[in-house]
């Protein structure tokens, strides 16, 4: 299977709703980054985690290396949260670069 499996592929939310994205890893990863990609292609870093949980405003992310997954939770969704979200994980061999999921297209409706 894919080294990084990201779900769901697409997510539709109404403003104010809560929801989550998940990445499962086929092997143990050392760290994970979550990005939002804007319409011009720019990857905006949301989180970098080597372990545990981080929160930033309405966003919260968890990385469990042992259980091989990471999650991104969006609380009280706003219109500006629309975009494509990617997780990317660092394997043991740092030089190999990040392995990305295929993204989750998030659409927030009023």
């Amino acid at each position, binding site marked *: 299977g894919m080294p990084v499996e990201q779900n769901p592929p697409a997510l539709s939310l109404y403003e104010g709703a809560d929801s989550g994205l998940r990445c499962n890893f086929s092997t143990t990863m050392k760290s994970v980054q979550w990005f939002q990609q804007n319409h011009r292609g720019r990857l905006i870093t949301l989180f970098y985690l080597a372990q545990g949980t981080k929160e930033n405003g309405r966003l919260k992310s968890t990385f469990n290396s042992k259980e091989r997954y990471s999650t991104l939770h969006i609380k009280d969704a706003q219109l500006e949260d629309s975009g494509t979200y990617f997780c990317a994980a660092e394997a043991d061999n740092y030089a190999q*670069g990040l392995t*990305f999921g295929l993204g989750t297209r998030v659409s927030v409706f009023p």
Partner: protein
Amino acid sequence: NSKVIQTPRYLVKGQGQKAKMRCIPEKGHPVVFWYQQNKNNEFKFLINFQNQEVLQQIDMTEKRFSAECPSNSPCSLEIQSSEAGDSALYLCASSPLDRHYAEQFFGPGTRLTVL
């Protein structure tokens, strides 16, 4: 916010032409990565450098691409003979050389269209 600079933002080439893009990493980051993102959102690692030395590159990069990160100059990635399948967003990222902190900071990308 990332301070990685990539130029040009858009590049249009004909098949067989050379396509060159540049990247200035964040100050103090000795490690630079290049990735390709295709229209299906598949990211492919291409090559990375530590200072001026290549750390790792994939087979495709070895054969059709040339890349360098000279001292005191922008890093560059050049496709020697562009093919339609090279149309993609090329992303440069830099990272501090720290085994305990390996966050990568991405530039805005160069969108290449090969006609």
